[in-house]
């Protein structure tokens, strides 16, 4: 019970606190917060919102898993942002230029994306292992380079083609598409949303049921203890980073293979950073991350309705930022509180021992 309280209380408090904060912001700017929140919940039933939320949840879930693998061993892969972008371009280019039977084609594209993401993540990983370069800085720089590389690769004289105002990679032939589950006028759930679920299960199994997962978590808890236990820290960094990058590479696959069939200028940005926030909110637990991804997707998609009642929808971005910040603070406060309680308990027990 106490464990559950320690795990569930902080996110609940953080979300309530953030909602309160945004409510105050709304009141100050002259809007009715209850009406705004009401509109957001009502929006879920409108049009394609519910399906959009599910699709978006899948995307966020994959990004957050990629971040969480690094977090498990205190490795900050800030570079998910760049990894999924590079992977998307490479996969879209490869997918658009090869011809394969249905199924196999999609599989090749997905694998290409994973490999591209892993390779992009390999650079900071190798720099860290061989030269001791801090992965935070190097992955931030790699994010910038990813933007440049993607913009270069879809240039009209490289792999891209001009369509109206948009530049995009050649369209992936139909054999490479992954069919979704149509819900008529409510939209279509991407088939690869299930890939996200599979990855979540795989993540759980890897972390809790394999030697590698144990060593990963051990390195995160105490790198010195892990080293004493025979864990090769450099190897762990390399593998964790490659895995993280590989999963990051899959982030945009549901969208590209399910709807867009190409990489274009409207490619969504910032999913990697949202992934960091969601992994923090979910405490690297596959279930917690799923909840966080759902919350993020809900805020994103339902927030669109706010414009109808005259509230700038960016309020949900503030709410997301406030949630991350307050949730990490809340976890820290609860941790300290429990530590103090534990110490008191130990003290009491020792005290009774002394008295007897």
């Amino acid at each position, binding site marked *: 019970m106490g464990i559950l309280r320690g795990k569930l209380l902080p996110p609940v408090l953080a979300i309530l606190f953030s909602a309160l904060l945004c409510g105050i*912001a709304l009141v100050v*700017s002259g809007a009715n917060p209850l009406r705004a929140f009401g509109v957001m919940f009502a929006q879920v039933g409108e049009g394609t919102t519910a399906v959009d939320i599910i699709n978006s949840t899948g995307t966020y879930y994959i990004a957050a898993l990629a971040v969480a693998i690094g977090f498990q061993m205190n490795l*900050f892969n*800030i570079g998910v942002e760049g990894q999924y972008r590079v992977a998307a371009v490479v996969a879209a280019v490869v997918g658009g230029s090869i011809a394969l039977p249905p199924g196999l084609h999609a599989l090749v594209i997905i694998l290409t994306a994973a490999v591209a993401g892993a390779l992009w993540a390999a*650079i900071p990983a190798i*720099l860290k292992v061989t*030269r*001791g*370069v*801090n992965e*935070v*800085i*190097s992955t*931030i*720089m*790699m*994010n*910038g*380079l990813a*933007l*440049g*590389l993607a*913009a*270069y690769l879809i*240039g009209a004289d490289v792999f891209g083609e001009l369509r109206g105002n948009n530049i995009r990679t050649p369209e992936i032939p139909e054999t490479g598409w992954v069919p979704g589950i149509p819900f008529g006028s409510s939209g279509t759930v991407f088939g690869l949303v299930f890939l996200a679920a599979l990855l979540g299960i795989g993540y759980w199994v890897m972390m809790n049921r394999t030697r590698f997962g144990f060593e990963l978590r051990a390195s995160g808890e105490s790198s010195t203890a892990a080293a004493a236990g025979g864990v090769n820290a450099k190897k762990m960094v390399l593998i964790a980073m490659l895995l993280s990058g590989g999963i990051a590479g899959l982030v945009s696959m549901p969208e590209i293979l399910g709807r867009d069939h190409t990489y274009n200028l409207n490619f969504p940005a910032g999913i990697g*950073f*949202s992934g*960091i*926030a969601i992994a*923090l909110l979910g405490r690297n637990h596959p279930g917690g991350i799923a909840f966080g991804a759902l919350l993020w997707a809900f805020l994103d998609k339902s927030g669109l309705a706010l414009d109808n009642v005259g509230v*700038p929808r*960016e*309020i*949900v*971005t*503030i*709410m*997301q*930022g*406030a949630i*991350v*910040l307050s949730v*990490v*603070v809340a976890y*820290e*406060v609860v941790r*300290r509180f429990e530590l103090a309680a534990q110490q008191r308990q130990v003290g009491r027990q020792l005290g009774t021992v002394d008295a007897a």
Partner: protein
Amino acid sequence: MNPSEAPATVPPPRKSRRIPGWAVGALGVAGAVVLLSTTSYLTGVPQLTSTGTIQTAVRLALPILLAALGGLWAERAGVVNIGLEGMMIMGTWGAAWAGYQWGPWAALVAAAVFGALGGLLHAIATVTFGVNHIVSGVAINLLGAGLTKYLSTLIFFPLSNNPRESPAVPKFDTYSASGLSDWLGELEAQQRVGLSDVAGILRGLVTGVSPLTMLAILLVIGSYLVLWRTRFGLRLRSCGENPVAAESLGVNVYLYKYVAVISSGALAGIGGAALVLNPGQPGYLEGQTNGRGFIGLAAMIFGNWRPGGLLGGAALFGYADGLQLRSGGKTFLALVYGAVLLLVVIVIWQLVRRRWFAAAFGILAAGLLYAVYYSVEEVPSELTTYAPHLVTLVVLAVASQRLRMPAADGVVYRRG
């Protein structure tokens, strides 16, 4: 205590530095000028050292410089500040909001205040609550971006009919050393090898100088004096090197960290104001910072957590940016040639020092770069924008062992 051990506690005589810091800086500047004018001569690209390029470079270097300075303050006190980008974004909004109403000086103050608010948030999270610095920084970046988008939709939209843009913000008047500038202009026009290059660079530096530029230079010098020449600075830096020892000597570590991180935010905010008050831009624009906070962080690392070094880093990144903006990818290619020249010098130096491996590596890199220079018509503009990122990665990879960050940088400290 064994008395014979006593002498061991006497510090060994300090290894005297062969060259003082200011001389290294002067040598660096001279080397850069020689390199640029040689490149300009050999490639026949006079724009490398033209007044216009330098002016643009200075304008573009300012935001990076100020962000880097912000990073310096925070990290010297032991707080890693990834949130610079978010604080900078808040600064751009504050500058535009106050600027269009009360003019550029108000813009500066408001930007500093808004940035400082971001810094305060970062300080509360990292210092008081002991949240991981990277995590808090990422959160502040998200929050800063969201907050400014919200506020600009709310406040700028009715004024400019565009939720992503502010009304035009009045700029600073610029000042030129007119007599000197004209004379240097004549020299530059003569196209004499070396001399005209120096004249062009100098003229770029003394023509159309905004008070913001002077302020930024003063802030660099001021930061150096405060952090390295005052008691306050020593204490602040001690919080970044060994907070436990500092606390035991009576330094209020939390207070110093708070001051440092709030100053850091204010400086990043002023960096944002430098973007808004850039004569080339009307005012606030969504996505205006475009990762410059991160580049500032990179400039600081490039400069080895020292004010002089980060000035050099910001100058280099600003120059690359300015060259690209001013004269395009063809001219930028000349810079690749310059890099080859630089590598050749380094290789010779490594050969003299009999560092064969490093020299071989340098030759390889130089050959590769020269192949690029030889085979490519111009560097695509999509890639030149990200040259700073690449340079930073290379510097980190090559010199990470020689860079020294504050010992307790990024370590959560808890008073105990």
